């Protein structure tokens, strides 16, 4: 049981990292980046390939993955600088599809749909499966804690305030003298880097990457997790990721309690229950479990904000 919980902790941590990355661009910057699975894949493949062919240790492979994902993020930010809302969502979703297609078709590099297996990771093969799962969970959550703290600082810092200003009204931010494009590029790269890091940890933990792993399902799960947890709050990403994993995995255990249903009915019911729960949650708490808190300065008698 402990192995299983540890493996769930690893997956929850990886989803939370993806959620944090998404929160920076979407939650703070208001840019709907559905290219998440693409950055996740770039990170996973960069890490897996550098570990397999160049024998990079996990730390180096992860830095390489972050670098490559950040570069892709910057590029995407430049290309989509003038897009907003649905249009940005469509283009970024397309980006993720392109990455998945490249992973599936550039066989010389990615081994095609066969995927890359036997990716090395610290402790794989030498530790027992339980110890490996526990140590992986430890590594993932340590990294997660560091990133969450850093993003929390960033969110409270002037940088975060500018991103929020861009989210609320890009024109106002520009008039206030902020270089909107450079902030967008910065946020996109930082977010992509964290998603790439999540990909690197995923590749190392799973030991296997294939294009199938980076379909739109990942993006959906993380968007759901962040929406349920609370967009704009870094803790929201963490709570949401844990919630989604608890929901998807917890429902596995109810199948046995429903006699007379076929396996397909149980599987379908399970996905229905997950969907229903998230719908109800957002009906009751539209801003998620941990809504964003924006400090508002009270007005004085003359209508000016107090200092």
């Amino acid at each position, binding site marked *: 049981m402990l192995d299983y919980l540890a493996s769930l902790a690893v997956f929850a941590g990886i989803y939370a990292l993806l959620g944090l990355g998404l929160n920076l661009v979407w939650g703070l910057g208001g840019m709907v980046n559905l290219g998440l699975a693409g950055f996740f894949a770039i990170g996973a493949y960069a890490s897996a390939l550098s570990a397999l062919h160049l024998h990079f240790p996990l730390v180096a492979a992860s830095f390489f993955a972050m670098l490559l994902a950040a570069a892709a993020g910057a590029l995407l930010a430049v290309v989509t600088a003038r897009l907003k809302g649905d249009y940005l969502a469509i283009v970024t979703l397309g980006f993720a599809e392109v990455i998945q297609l490249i992973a599936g078709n550039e066989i010389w590099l990615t081994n095609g749909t*066969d995927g890359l*297996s036997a990716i090395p990771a610290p402790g794989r093969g030498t530790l027992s499966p339980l110890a490996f799962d526990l140590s992986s969970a430890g590594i993932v959550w340590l990294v997660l804690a560091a990133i969450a703290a850093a993003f929390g600082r960033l969110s409270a810092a002037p940088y975060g305030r500018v991103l929020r200003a861009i989210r609320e009204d890009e024109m106002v931010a520009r008039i206030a003298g902020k270089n909107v494009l450079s902030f967008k590029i910065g946020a996109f790269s930082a977010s992509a880097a964290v998603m790439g890091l999540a990909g690197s940890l995923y590749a190392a933990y799973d030991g296997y990457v294939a294009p199938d792993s980076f379909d739109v399902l990942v993006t959906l799960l993380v968007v759901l997790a962040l929406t349920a947890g609370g967009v704009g709050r870094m803790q929201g990403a963490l709570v949401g990721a844990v919630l989604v994993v608890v929901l998807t995995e917890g429902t596995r255990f109810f199948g046995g309690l429903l006699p007379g249903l076929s396996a*397909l009915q149980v599987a379908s019911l399970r996905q229905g229950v997950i969907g229903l729960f998230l719908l109800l949650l957002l009906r009751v708490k539209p801003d998620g479990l941990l809504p964003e808190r924006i400090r508002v300065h009270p007005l004085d008698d003359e209508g000016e904000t107090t200092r």
Partner: protein
Amino acid sequence: MGPTVSRRAVFGGSLALPFLGRSGFAAAPIPLGAINPLTGAGGAYGPSMAKVAQALTARINSTGGVLGRSIALDIEDDQTNPTVAVEAAHKLIDVNKVVAIVGTWASSVTTAVAPLCWQSHTMLFCTSGADSITKLPHHGYIIRTQPNTYLQSGRAAQFLLQHGARSVFGLSAQTPFAVDSWNRLAAVLKTGGASGAGDIIYDPKQISFRSEIGKALAAKPDTLFLNSYAPDLEILLRETYQAGFSGNRFTFAYAATDAVLQALPASVTNGLWSFAPSPDVASPAYRAVQAILGINDPDPYSCQIYDHVSLVVLAIARAGAASGVAIHDNVRKISQGTGEKVSDPVAGLKLLAAGKEINYEGASGPCDFTPSGDIVSCKFLFQVAENKHNKTLFIS
């Protein structure tokens, strides 16, 4: 005043209902896992696979189980996605403590789950086709009942040679087996004096294949080998017809579905050859699968999972112990060799209990395995499209 029954008692009793009727066995049940594609791309096969596994397990349990223990089968949905499958496998291995996992279908799912299995000494029985699977360092913990690409393409090439193909061009959807498949086909064609005129791997999500077809027809082949799925096959058939190709076309039966044949005019599809590894339709085990599903032509994967469950229980009985290691060490002792041939796992259990040796021959075929876990041989079905339907040519 009559007996009083509190609402609480009724509620409590109804909660306990699912747990009734499981007794009758002295020892704890043997946990067995199945990971099936109940939803997602494999959703056409997973549900019937699960049904067969459940029905066979129930039958074995109702006839006394194995080693005096019942089998507790837990079926998990992998959504045809390797990440979901890994989570499901963790649950089965770590929480249910299963001795084996049966019925993984997609190659990516099997490849993702395999390391968890061999590291935890859990046997993995799969129906996936990618050659790379049995080349993994699995230490004997993978058994595959699906013929690999090598076996399939070799047989396909023999068929084409017998039917006069001299120059074959391959158009293959990008899949884990596209390259291996073509290489083996071309190699066998060459030994028969024919040749591979060339090959192209295409992205199956395209809505037109005109440029690929243009390249293929420029090589002037007499036969096209269409390594496709149903949606892209439909487009390929229409566009090669429009391009004026009049030679033979050969594809896989899972692509040449009735839906494809119905969607196109008969003049386009007539003469399309297709083939598939065939279950052993003469086997009593095959009839058992027909009875479970209530249909005449169960798919190969449902037949294979019937054999997976049979092999698991027979290996456990032969070993006298229920563990992944016991199955690993005994699965070939009950599936091949000189023992008495059996197709019914319950009959096999009786023979084993009587101290006899057995050789299980299943619904999917002889179930004889190489040291790396591949099947040695199986039967193939060849068919031809005629007036919007597939007509069986022969099974051999």
